[in-house]
């Protein structure tokens, strides 16, 4: 700014006069400014007489004020059209009219004061309100307050209603969301105004006639005032009364036949209900009901088969129990335990400490087989080809054209029932457990030789196998003669010997026990044979089944005779399962002093012949088991080199 050259700026005052018009030439004609008196008139006209400074007459003079407004407007109009009039004309007019009004008011008041001709009466409400006594004021105040309160209350009601509606809407939404969730897991359909669901396994192939329907209930009328319980769910389900509670199939095997009076009164005890976190209450309920339905179906199927199947010992169906005899003296009981409510559980609880004789495997298998049956039902339905052919089993339709005979057809139709299968499984389980017990009891009872059982971990439902080894402690490496493979089936046990012999044992416990005892007694003789090989002794004779000596009640005795390396001594062992072992040592004639003189053998060369036998007092022998004793004996009879 400071350094710049001075610029000349001309300033002109803005036009103070109003422009009236602009010519074509651009010259502006201005409105001539008002003269002093004109200006005064203009200002005087602006005086508003309606706004009186006197407040006393404010209320009473409302109407005259209005009137004056009108007057003023009129006057303004006249002023505009008659600008030459005296400037104070409007002011004078106003004042005059005011004076008139005042005079009238004065007259009226004076007349009223006389109270002769005129009296003041409340006309307008404003006046009365202003002059009513306090009681009325109070009443009116109360009234207005009441109306105000009413208004407020109404508003509050509306608000709360809308809030409730909101909540209801939310609940409704919750219900719909729950319904959607339910729909994704269960079959639902709408019948009339009800929503019905399907619990049954019919779509999975079940033929059980129970309808298995449940009803979906909207559980939204809950009291808003009360606290909403934690497990509240806007959706509830109503299941048929006969599917309520919990149920399971109990399978057990009992040894003794119970009193017939006890039949059908299996105690019902509730299992503790496991409630998984996070699942909906209706889901738990429905799953329980479906389980009840499945249990019922299994039991119905089993009872039907129990009645239909002809067996030697008829199956008994009493109330909720099916009793069958797989083996003589053994009883398989399958019962449907269904506890419907709290009452029964409390009643049955004192009986709970009874030993738990469930056969969980069989219970599980029953469920599994039922589902397999369902699946079979579903998959057996195939579409006919050609399309005109009737529905039905394809194989049966083949029977005619392929000229099946009766046997083939009955083969096609035959299918094992649930009951037969479960009885077979029970038999197998029983046989297996009894075999295990027999082997264990033998192993614990007999220390020498030792018996070992190796059970295979993977079994078929109808077959399992065990490997039985009979060994002597400390000589496991050399005495491996007896290795038995026991294949336990449903009715019998097949024993496969190491050398390929197959022996079939029945389900009788005694048979297995006798067989194992005889094998153990044979083992001892085999062990002597093996030991002789190791010790350098010669086996002179060996027999598994000796035809001489006392008759054994179980199996046969076996015997072996071994000679010392130089042939001087011989040991004979006879071992029977019942009679035990007898060990005899034959000495050379030379060692015997009191040899009876014989007429036949007199030459000294006959001294090399073996002499008489002497029995070893085996129980007095040193050594912890038979083979060890035998080793000691052999060692004793072997001359030192």
């Amino acid at each position, binding site marked *: 700014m400071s350094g710049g050259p001075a610029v000349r700026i001309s300033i002109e005052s803005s036009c103070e006069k109003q422009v009236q018009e602009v010519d074509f030439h651009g010259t502006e004609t201005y409105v001539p400014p008002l003269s002093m008196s004109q200006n005064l008139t203009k200002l005087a006209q602006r005086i508003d007489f309606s706004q009186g400074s006197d407040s006393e007459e404010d209320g009473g003079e409302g109407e005259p004020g209005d009137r004056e407004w009108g007057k003023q407007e009129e006057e303004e109009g006249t002023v505009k059209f008659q600008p030459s009039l005296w400037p104070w004309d409007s002011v004078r007019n106003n004042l005059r009219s005011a004076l008139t009004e005042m005079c009238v008011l004065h007259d009226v008041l004076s007349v009223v004061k006389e109270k002769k001709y005129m009296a003041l009466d409340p006309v307008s409400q404003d006046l009365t309100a202003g002059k009513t006594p306090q009681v009325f004021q109070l009443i009116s105040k109360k009234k207005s307050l009441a109306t105000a309160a009413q208004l407020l209350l109404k508003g509050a009601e509306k608000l709360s209603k809308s809030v409730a509606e909101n909540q209801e809407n939310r609940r409704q939404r919750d219900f719909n969301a729950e319904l959607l969730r339910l729909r994704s897991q269960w079959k639902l359909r709408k019948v009339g105004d009800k929503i019905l669901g399907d619990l049954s396994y019919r*779509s999975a192939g079940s033929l059980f006639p129970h309808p298995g329907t449940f009803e979906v209930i909207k559980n939204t009328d809950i009291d808003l005032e009360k606290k909403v319980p934690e497990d509240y769910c806007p959706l509830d389900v109503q299941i048929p009364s006969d599917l309520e509670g919990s149920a399971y199939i109990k399978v057990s095997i009992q040894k003794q036949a119970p009193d017939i009076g006890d039949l059908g009164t299996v105690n019902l005890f509730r299992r503790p209900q496991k409630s998984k976190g996070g699942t909906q209450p209706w889901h738990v309920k429905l799953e329980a009901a479906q389980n009840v339905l499945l249990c019922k179906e299994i039991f119905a199927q089993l009872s039907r088969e129990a009645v239909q199947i002809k067996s030697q010992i008829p199956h008994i169906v009493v109330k909720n129990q099916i009793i069958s005899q797989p083996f003589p003296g053994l009883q398989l009981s399958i019962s449907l335990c269904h506890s419907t409510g709290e009452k029964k559980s409390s009643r049955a609880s004192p009986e709970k400490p009874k030993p738990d004789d469930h056969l969980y495997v069989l219970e599980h298998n029953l469920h599994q087989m039922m589902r397999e049956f369902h699946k079979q039902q579903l998959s057996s*339905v195939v*579409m*006919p*080809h*050609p*399309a*005109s*052919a*009737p*529905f039905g089993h*394809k194989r049966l*339709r*083949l*029977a*005619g*054209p*392929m000229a099946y005979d009766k046997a083939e057809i009955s083969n096609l139709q035959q299918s094992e029932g649930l009951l037969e299968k479960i009885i077979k499984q029970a038999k197998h389980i029983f046989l297996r457990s009894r075999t295990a017990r027999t082997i264990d009891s033998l192993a614990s009872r007999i220390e020498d030789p030792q018996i070992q059982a190796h059970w295979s971990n993977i079994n078929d439902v109808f077959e399992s196998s065990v490997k039985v080894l009979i060994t002597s402690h400390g000589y496991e490496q050399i005495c491996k003669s007896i290795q038995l493979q026991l294949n336990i089936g449903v009715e019998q046990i097949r024993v496969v010997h190491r050398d390929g012999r197959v022996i079939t044992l029945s389900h009788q416990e005694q048979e297995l026990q006798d067989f194992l005892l005889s094998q153990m007694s044979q083992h001892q003789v085999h062990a002597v044979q093996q030991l002789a090989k190791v010790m350098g002794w010669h086996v002179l004779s060996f027999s598994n089944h000796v035809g001489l000596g006392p008759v054994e009640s179980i199996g046969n005795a076996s015997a072996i005779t071994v000679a010392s390396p130089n042939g001087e001594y011989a040991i004979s062992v006879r071992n029977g399962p019942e009679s035990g072992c007898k060990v005899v040592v034959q000495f050379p004639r030379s060692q015997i002093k009191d040899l009876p003189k014989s007429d036949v053998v007199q030459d000294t060369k006959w001294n090399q012949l073996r002499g008489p036998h002497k029995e070893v007092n085996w129980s007095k022998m040193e050594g912890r088991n038979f083979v060890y004793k035998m080793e000691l004996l052999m060692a004793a009879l072997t001359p030192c080199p």
Partner: protein
Amino acid sequence: MEAPPVTVMPITSGTINMMEYLLQGSVLDLALESLLHRLRGLCDNMEPETFTDHELVYLLKGQQGNPFILRARRSLSHPTAPWHLRYLGQPEVGDKSRHALVRNCVDVAASHSLPDFLNEMGFRMDHEFVTSGHIFRKGAMKVVVCSVSRVLVPGNTENTERMSLSHLVELSVLAPAGQDTMSEDMRSFAEQLKPLIHLEKIDPSKQRH
């Protein structure tokens, strides 16, 4: 060996005395997809199956009266499946209010030598056709949606010509006589297909005239 007893009297029980309850309709090929879609939703939850069958209609002309008709059908898609021999009786007049056509029906599965056997018996083939389409099942009800093709050269099922631009739809149930509840079920099922197809009781004998 004792000869089996010869049955002279008509067998009144078992699978022999079965009635076929039938409703028929047809759908244009354009609307076929939506009909199949609907059927897939309504019928039993099974894999939808297609079929191609070859049907031969045999006549045995006697001295008087109507010829005796037998239908022999084989599956072209399942060549090993047995042949199907079918006798269809005249539609029962009976109850007009019944919702479905009812006729006697005898189904026999037969071996592959069926045509020769029928020829030997004196039957003569009247006409043959090839049908292919879809088969659905709902309970006992069978729904067959198929197109019918004319066999141009007798015996050659490869060379065929479509009869029309529409599919034949048949809803049928095999049931013992007198089960009118069946026709109720069929009607309600047909109702559910209503906008897409109108299944009706069509008397073939009246169609001819």
